[in-house]
């Protein structure tokens, strides 16, 4: 009976780590501070299949002090990770844009890892009217 139940659930409904767990995996358990990162996400999204986001971190981007990685996580997609960008002093500025999918209204978090090993984050929430990628499962 429990076997039947497990089969009837979508695969992602049980397996996904929470937003905080996913961030902890990325940071290796280090403390994540608020600030130094700006996440631009439209507050109202018409089409969750392509949501433009921009993440910018405050950093001089020199050899001694730069952003090493920028990661983006979501709260309620089937997978918590969205993307991880590797930057360096040759990036010049710590700014990245891309387009992402949002399965439902939720919170998106951007985390930046600095060259000194500190982590900074910013979060934003979006209301999604047309969901991405899992509409066939409901």
């Amino acid at each position, binding site marked *: 009976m429990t076997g039947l139940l497990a089969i009837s659930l*979508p*695969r*992602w409904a049980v397996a996904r780590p929470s937003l905080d767990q996913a961030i902890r995996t990325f940071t290796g358990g280090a403390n994540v501070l608020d600030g130094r990162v700006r996440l631009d996400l439209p507050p109202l999204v018409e089409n969750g*299949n*392509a*949501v433009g986001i921009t993440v910018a971190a405050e950093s001089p981007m020199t050899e001694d002090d730069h952003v090493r990685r920028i990661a983006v996580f*979501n709260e309620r*997609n*089937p*997978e918590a*990770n*969205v*993307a*991880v*960008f*590797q*930057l*360096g*002093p*040759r*990036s*010049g*500025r710590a*700014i*990245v*844009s*891309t*387009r*992402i*999918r*949002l399965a439902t209204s939720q919170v998106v978090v951007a985390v930046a890892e600095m060259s000194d090993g500190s982590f900074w984050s910013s979060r934003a929430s979006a209301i999604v009217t047309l969901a*991405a*990628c*899992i509409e*066939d*499962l409901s």
Partner: protein
Amino acid sequence: MARTLVNVPKAAKQGEVVEIKAMIAHPMETGYRIGPNGSNIPRDIIRRFACTYNGEEVFSADLFPAVSANPFIAFTLVATTSGTIDFTWTDDAGKSQTASATITVS
């Protein structure tokens, strides 16, 4: 494998920060969708994107299914010397697609 589109300024001053845009035509199939026959459509995504400047890797990205179809990435680079900027996209099967652009630095 797929059509790509990259946008790199043709010329820049030394030390200038230039914006780079890169896109590839790819469905980024998540593996969570169910096809018309009732079975899952298998996952097929671009897993990694990398950018090298005269052979040295200066930017890369690990992508997950939450990145939209036809993944678009915009980032910045410091124009150091004239040369080529190469872009590589690698998918789940390990196949890769490349694109390249030249930049003249004065």
